[in-house]
């Protein structure tokens, strides 16, 4: 097990309340995205993060704001956790000019350089070598920043995943690779995807530090990712983390997820990240129901504001269609 980051502060009442707010906000934003999808305001593919909120929020709590994040197509929650404003995020889902990528990217391609959110990628596993390259640059340019790369269990069978890991370990790059194991690659369950179901063991093959833990408790995520970041930042090389989580919804909006076992979802919901943190706030920090309700109400209002902003934003102009195909000569 990686040594904890000695500089990481202990989570206090305010910090935990902030994390709870963030997780609740992400869930509420995703619920409104689902609602908008059923109203045909969000089109195409739409992959929701509901159930996995503790991962993105825990990782963000452990990161510096200058750390770079690179991820896949289930990235709405990570975007919000990294600091992309819910307004810009939602407007991108709506395909509006005010979106994070001006409506050019959509649900799967959210980019926000201002908060070092380097994008959602739609080709499974392609972000792994890209994150390796970001880490290469962070190291060569003399920064103390780390690249954080998110992907699902389904990406761990791709060649790009192995090649990215090989290169990152070979060059001892500051990158933390995070497998968010939610047990399904689209509709294929873990044991039907892989002979090795402890996916973090893939790290052993390239000589990389590797670790697995349950990610339902945001404090655990924060603490273990903090250790991994500390390792990567110290210059000794990358880390592969397998964070066990669960997605409550189908792969995308049109997937009813009939492939789950009966009762599986209900069982998993007992360790719901919001529930765990709510209990902890009440039991260990004496937070009242009214205070919890106030946190939720604030997040509800933020999410509503994002949806309204997206809905009332202008469409992109077709006149600007060619603006970003090539960088104009300097």
């Amino acid at each position, binding site marked *: 097990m990686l040594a904890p980051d000695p500089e990481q502060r202990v989570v206090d009442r305010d910090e935990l309340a902030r994390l709870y707010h963030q997780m609740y906000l992400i869930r509420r934003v995703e619920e409104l995205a689902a609602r908008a999808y059923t109203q045909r305001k969000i089109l195409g593919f739409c992959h929701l993060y509901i159930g996995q909120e503790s991962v993105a929020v825990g990782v963000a709590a452990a990161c510096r704001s200058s750390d*770079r994040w*690179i991820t896949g197509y289930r990235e709405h929650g990570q975007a919000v956790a990294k600091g992309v404003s819910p307004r810009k995020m939602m407007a991108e889902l709506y395909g509006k000019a005010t979106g*994070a*990528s*001006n409506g*050019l*990217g959509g649900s799967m*391609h959210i*980019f*926000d*350089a201002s908060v070092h959110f*380097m*994008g959602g*990628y*739609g*080709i499974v596993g*392609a972000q*792994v*070598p*890209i*994150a*390796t*390259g*970001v*880490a*290469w*640059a*962070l190291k*060569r*340019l003399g920064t103390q920043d780390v*690249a954080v790369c998110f992907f699902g269990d389904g990406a761990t069978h791709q*060649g*790009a995943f*192995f*090649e*990215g890991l*090989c*290169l990152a370990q*070979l060059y001892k790059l500051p990158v933390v690779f995070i497998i968010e194991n939610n047990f399904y690659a689209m509709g294929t369950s873990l044991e039907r995807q892989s002979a090795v179901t402890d996916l973090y063991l893939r790290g052993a093959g390239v000589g990389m530090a590797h670790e697995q833990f349950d990610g339902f408790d945001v404090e655990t995520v924060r603490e273990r990712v903090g250790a991994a970041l500390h390792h990567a930042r110290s210059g000794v090389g990358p880390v592969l983390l397998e964070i066990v989580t669960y997605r409550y919804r189908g792969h995308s909006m049109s997937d009813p997820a009939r492939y789950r076992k009966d009762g599986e979802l209900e069982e998993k919901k007992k360790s719901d990240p919001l529930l765990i943190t709510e209990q902890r706030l009440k039991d260990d920090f004496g937070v009242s129901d009214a205070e919890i309700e106030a946190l939720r109400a604030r997040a509800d209002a933020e999410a509503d504001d994002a949806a309204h902003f997206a809905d009332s934003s202008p469409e992109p102009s077709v006149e600007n269609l060619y*603006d*970003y*195909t*090539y*960088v104009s*000569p*300097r």
Partner: protein
Amino acid sequence: MIPMREAIRQAMAEEMRRDPTIFLMGEEVALYDGAYKVSQGMLAEFGPDRIVDTPIAENGFTGLAVGAAMAGMRPIVEFMTFNFSLVAYDQVVNSAARIYQMSAGQYRLPIVFRGPNGHAENLASQHSTAVESLYAHFPGLKVVSPSTPYDAKGLLKTAIRDDNPVIFLESELMYGFKGEVPDEEYLIPFGKADIKRQGDDVVIVVWGKHVHTCLKAAESLKADGISAMVLDIRSIRPLDHDAIFAAVARTHRAVVVQEGFPFAGVAAEIITRIQESCFDLLDAPVLRVTNRDVPQPYATVLEKAVIITAERVVETVKLVMGR
């Protein structure tokens, strides 16, 4: 007079001295001095952080270059041959060509992908592919292919300074080809074709190593009383429409010579554009010379039947001239 490989090396080294964010990465580029000795001596000057040997993981190090470019560096990726770039095709076409657009301009991809393209001698099926048609298809990529040491150096320096991903196609057969390169610095802009030989009766549109095949053909056509212009477009994307259309306006006949397979190739694209814009300037259908439509065979006699030769160019020009 210096050989092509040295012109390419000069371009890289000069730019690397100018800009510390540039690095060269690829298989055998450092300690081995490059599979074709293009990067000979560069490790000694720039060190292992900037002249970087990679394992055989084309998709991986191409993706690495994409990420490094997004984070502020300017990678040069050497493919030992462009055949191997197909292993990395996803990162080139799905990542490098698109991130600038799908991030609405927030991330730039100043990467040069370079290496030998097309056939050499007896390299057989999997090491002889010409890839220009595979890359020129994609908006977001630029594709260039020099035919002389002078052009190679000037175009490569432009490619390294360009903020877009550039596919830079060389030829194993040309690394030893010598030409004049001036001492003073110069750059050659993309999208500017060069008339390698002036002519009045027919224009041969071509790029890369087959510029020389076509110069040879033009010389032999002189004996038949045919004055052939050889127009080296140098960059396939962006394409110098002005130069091509002006040449057609002068000669009223054109032949396009493209290495690689004929189906849906760059030659087909250029011919389409000529007929779209110059229909009334033409005295004859525009014909093309390409490889034969089969995977490259190994045996010499078969290989010679497949590749583009000066004789085939002469035959095709005569068809266009009605001879």
